[in-house]
């Protein structure tokens, strides 16, 4: 392909007119292969914004539906009356209990857990360059499990709140140990070290958990329930108490987006662009710890969502990091709330654990994404179509 050397650029663009530049470049692409939307120098924001708005609207609608739906016999219209301030519904203690004390907290928790898992999965897949990374990778889940078992067995914890605290402490501690291990030594915090340290400690914690469980029957029953994963036991106050962890994790994540995206070029190129790969990995791992720790404390070890959501997001966003993170969090929150609503109604009047539904719904969804054209190269039909 000959290229004019030393001569004027093949397609001169008025230097002073910055705004016209994307359009000018687009015209020179002569339409054959370059898509109009992707031909500008800046990535097209509109498809992402549209998708984000749609997902946010869906989240609002699903949250409302979540407040209206229950596994009990209260009709939806009655719950609606309560929400719109109908005096007779407001006076009904039964409805109040169902909406305010049961459905509101689990809806809040669902949004937080979903957003946390979606964002954490997205971060981990980027930082470890491992398309199968999910939030269990840093030992958060196995650490939380060990925390719960220790709390149940040796400290007689019996409240949902107590279990939550043990899970949070175990998850954050485990992740901290993994990070210390991965960051020490000469080749600090390479993706491989991170993954290896996570798996090794995960296995260790798992063994310790099993060892403790063998001792006591009652612990085993409680643990078995916890390990399935559910939003049913969260209270509004605890959801709000854990919200700052999720918010902090998301804030760190969005702050680290640009350096994180540079890691995709390899460590050398990232450093040549002025970044610190090891530092980026640690910062991102801290964000993942906050997000996944809060999620596992509220809902138990639900990991699948963190794997699924980034793939769904990439269908729209392509490889760009910030939109991916945003859409991943929104998708996961939507799926989480939807699954939790289904959990209440599929075998009414009993409840199904939400993780079971996530697996039942999410598995086919992931397969569908994998079969769609967008997935073939980690998803960027947006860059082409």
């Amino acid at each position, binding site marked *: 392909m000959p290229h004019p050397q030393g001569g004027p650029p093949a397609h001169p663009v008025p230097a002073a007119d910055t705004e016209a530049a994307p359009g000018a470049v687009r015209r020179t*692409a002569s339409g054959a292969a*370059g898509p109009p*939307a992707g031909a500008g120098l800046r990535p097209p924001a509109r498809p992402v914004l549209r998708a984000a708005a749609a997902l946010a609207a869906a989240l609002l609608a699903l949250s409302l539906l979540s407040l209206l739906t229950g596994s009990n016999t209260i009709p939806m219209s009655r719950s609606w009356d309560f929400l719109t301030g109908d005096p007779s519904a407001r006076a009904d203690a039964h409805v109040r209990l169902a909406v305010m004390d049961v459905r509101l907290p689990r809806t809040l928790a669902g949004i937080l857990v979903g957003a946390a898992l979606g964002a954490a999965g997205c971060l981990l897949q980027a930082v470890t360059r491992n398309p199968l990374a999910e939030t269990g990778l840093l030992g958060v889940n196995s650490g939380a499990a060990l925390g719960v078992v220790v709390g149940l067995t040796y400290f007689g914890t019996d409240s949902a709140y107590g279990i939550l605290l043990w899970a949070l402490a175990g998850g954050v501690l485990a992740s901290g140990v993994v990070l210390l291990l991965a960051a020490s030594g000469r080749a600090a915090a390479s993706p491989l070290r991170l993954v290896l340290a996570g798996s090794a400690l995960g296995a260790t914690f798992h063994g310790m958990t099993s060892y403790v469980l063998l001792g006591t029957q009652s612990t085993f029953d409680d643990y078995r329930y916890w390990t399935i994963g559910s939003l049913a036991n969260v209270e509004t106050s605890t959801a709000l108490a854990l919200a700052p962890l999720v918010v902090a994790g998301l804030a760190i994540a969005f702050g680290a987006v640009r350096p994180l995206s540079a890691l995709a070029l390899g460590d050398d190129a990232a450093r040549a662009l002025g970044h610190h790969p090891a530092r980026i990995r640690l910062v991102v791992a801290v964000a993942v710890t906050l997000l996944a720790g809060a999620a596992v404390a509220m809902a138990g070890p639900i990991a699948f969502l963190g794997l699924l959501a980034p793939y769904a997001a990439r269908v729209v966003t392509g490889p760009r990091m910030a939109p991916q993170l945003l859409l991943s969090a929104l998708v996961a929150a939507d799926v989480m709330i939807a699954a939790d609503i289904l959990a209440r109604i599929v075998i009414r009047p009993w409840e199904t654990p939400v993780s079971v539904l996530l697996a039942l719904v999410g598995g086919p969804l992931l397969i569908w994404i994998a079969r769609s054209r967008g997935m073939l190269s980690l998803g960027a039909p947006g860059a082409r179509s």
Partner: protein
Amino acid sequence: MIRVTADPTTLDDTAPAPAPGAGASAATPAGHELVVEGLRAGYPGQLAVRGVDLTVPAGRVVAVVGPNGCGKSTLLRAVARLHKPESGRVRVGDADIWQLKQRQAAHRVALLPQSPQPPEAVTVAGLVRYGRHPHQGLFRQWSREDERAVREALEATGVAALAGRRLDQLSGGQRQRCWLAMVLAQETPVVLLDEPTSALDMGHAVEVLGLTREVAAAGRTVVMVLHDLASAARYADTLVAMNDGLVVASGAPRDIVDAQLVKELYGVDADILPAPGDGSPVVVPAARTATDRPGTDRGQPDADRGQAGTNRGRAG
């Protein structure tokens, strides 16, 4: 279309005046000389670079040549602030690269690593935008300045028409020009290229090498590691020949490339002919049969020898 501009000047000459050309712009920091002083780098007990001094005036194309493992890549990495030297200094203008923060260093030196990995499904414009990272920050987002730099880099490398295409759908030559555009968008006075032509056919290699001349014409300094001695001789103002961690010769290609140098670097007997046209040295390795190989006198793998012109192996 080879545009021969190799100017047989020596290292100590004054820099050629920056000419208007691709990559030239008011914002491009030009006119900084690159100085390497007493550089020793490698690993404890095994230095790959054992004391290198180098002064490169602005606006030059310098090719570093030498056998695999001679330390040329380590030299490049130390200059780019990727590999901390045991001792010695790297200066660009009056700034000591290793005294700067990583990001400040990235304002002065850009590096295109050998076979860089592209982010999956990235577009050409998306890739070139990475070059602006050192100029952005948490609270300094995309600016008109970034827009201009990216556009100029795309045009300078002739890939503006491909801006919206996906990198993985382009040919190898187009892709390499896109990577070059990314490095140029960084707008640094010094541009380092680690074997920029190693995966390209002759036509695309010539294109990329021609681009380096244009970048230098704009007042920037290009230092590249090359395996192909013939192209190095034709496109570089200055050749720096390294062997065993030391510079064994440096200067204008036609002054330093001779049979003795080729023998010293690669252990190969060769004929050196002046190219018709500009007289730059052409290296023609002597025919050799498997039986008269000299063995492993310098500890080099046999496969890497005898084909200095076409070697695509990893530089040490």
